[in-house]
């Protein structure tokens, strides 16, 4: 159980400000979604939170403890773990060994890690794929594997970067149920997602980014009626037309 807090996160790449003044608080047992058009800076926020990038300004903390200066490995040890939008399997290794890599963080031996990996793969209904090389999995299974690896580290806060992307509707439905299950277990979950119907079903809170800046926060119901968000997503004319219709 841990609260992830971000304050004033800003990241510039040369003249481009990819992320500006992003702040939020993700609490245990809650799902926070970060949405926004392509290039809004969503993945950059994850990179800042997990230590793959250093913020130019602002800070993040886990349960009040500042994360500044910690390596990605140390943040993972502290319980903050992510998945990658572009899935990063250990391609040459079996599905089981991929998950063992994650489980090693808290397991004393490879043997113990295997037991943890088995349990996680069972939860994700992947036991039939144990010996399959990760490089030969279809995209849906790769997304689930990405999730399995992250879960095997025994996280408190889970950052999921577009785990629905490329999934067929049945898989999306199962993934939504699974993520809700994680939340109900008390995990803090932050998701980046383009799949709007999934976002609306999952989220307790939504943070909307545009051009690196937060433009709205609120519950799914509030966000879906917010004219600024509609304008960002569908263009100003469409939003005005929507207002006129109301």
């Amino acid at each position, binding site marked *: 159980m841990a609260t992830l807090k971000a304050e004033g996160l800003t990241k510039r790449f040369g003249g481009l400000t990819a992320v500006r003044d992003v702040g939020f608080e993700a609490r245990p047992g809650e799902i926070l979604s970060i949405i926004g058009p392509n290039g809004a800076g969503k993945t950059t926020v994850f990179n800042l939170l997990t230590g793959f990038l250093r913020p130019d300004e602002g800070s993040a903390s886990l349960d009040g403890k500042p994360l500044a200066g910690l390596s990605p490995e140390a943040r*993972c040890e502290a319980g903050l773990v*992510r998945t990658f939008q572009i899935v990063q399997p*250990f391609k040459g290794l079996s599905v089981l060994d991929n998950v063992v890599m994650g489980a*090693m963080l808290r397991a004393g031996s490879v043997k113990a*890690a295997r037991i943890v990996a088995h349990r996680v793969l069972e939860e994700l209904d992947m036991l039939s794929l144990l010996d399959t090389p990760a490089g030969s999995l279809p995209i849906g299974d790769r997304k689930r594997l990405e999730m399995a690896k992250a879960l095997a580290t025994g996280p408190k806060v889970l950052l999921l970067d577009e785990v629905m992307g490329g999934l067929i509707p049945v898989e999306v439905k199962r993934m939504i149920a699974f993520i809700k299950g994680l939340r109900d277990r008390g995990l803090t979950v932050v998701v980046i997602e383009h799949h709007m119907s999934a976002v609306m079903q999952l989220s307790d809170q939504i943070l909307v980014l545009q051009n690196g800046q937060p433009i709205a926060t609120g519950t799914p119901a509030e966000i879906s009626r917010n004219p600024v968000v509609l304008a960002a997503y569908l263009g100003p004319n469409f939003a005005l037309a929507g207002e006129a219709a109301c």
Partner: protein
Amino acid sequence: MSPPAPTIAGTLWRPALGFAALALLPLVFREPFTLGMVTLSFIGAASSLAWNLSGGYAGQLSLGHAAFFGIGAYASTLLFLKAGISPLIGMWAGAAISAVSAAALGAITMRLKGSFFVMSTLAFGAVVHITAVNLRDVTGGSSGLAIPLQPSLGNLVFADKLAYAYVALGLVAAYYVLTRALAASKIGYALVAFRENDDAARALGIRTLPVRIGIFALSAAMISLCGTLHAQYFLYIDPDSVMSLNLSLNLALMAIVGGLGTAHGPIIGAMLVTAVSFAMQAYLGNQISGLTQIAYSGIVIAVLLAAPAGLGPALGRLVQRRLAWQR
């Protein structure tokens, strides 16, 4: 590429059979020329196994490992010649020096990625080589050092060359067992995680840097012992024979030809590479200079085209297919 060995038990009969076959080789090839070939292929196999721990499992290609081989050869030889210390003790001094210098080198260069790391090892190898050539007062420079032929176990000098073959084979067996044990441990997994995907490893909290530095040091110490054995076998060393770039390339080649990141690959690779180079020398050696190297590289290219993952894994698949066929 095959995953790290799933379990150690259950697959022991195959290596046992392999080592039994290797143990017969020195008895079958008793002629001095062929016995020399067998002995050098064993020393090569042990060296390449050492190289493979870092170069194969972690995928950190080192082209400077000859430096550690040379440090081993020179440390034990100098301690013996100048202070009368038995090579049986001197070899551990060499291993310690190699391990410490590898750890220092690794701590700096292992933050470099891909080819930049390779270049740094290349430079290290060259610097050590040149230093050995120029430090004439200590190393004898290019004229080298000779070890007196005084056979005794304490001197690690044997009148019967057969003994060297079995000492070398013992080293191969020890390194093979060590490799298998490490590959199946958390250390082996961390190395493979780094090789397969560094960012993914970091995101899962795997701290690979200290593991990689430690394994680099262990690998240097192991190859250093091979250097001592090489010196005792030839009773003569000079910088070109124990520290050259050629030697570094050969170690890498043996592992690549046999199968990177497998425990049996370097052994198979060393046997083949040594046999081919001996055959070339025997049949082509006195004809046109350089022909040996050309033919040699031709064979290596052919092997790698036919079996990109190395001969070891290719043979493994062949055996598995045969077994499946029988069932």
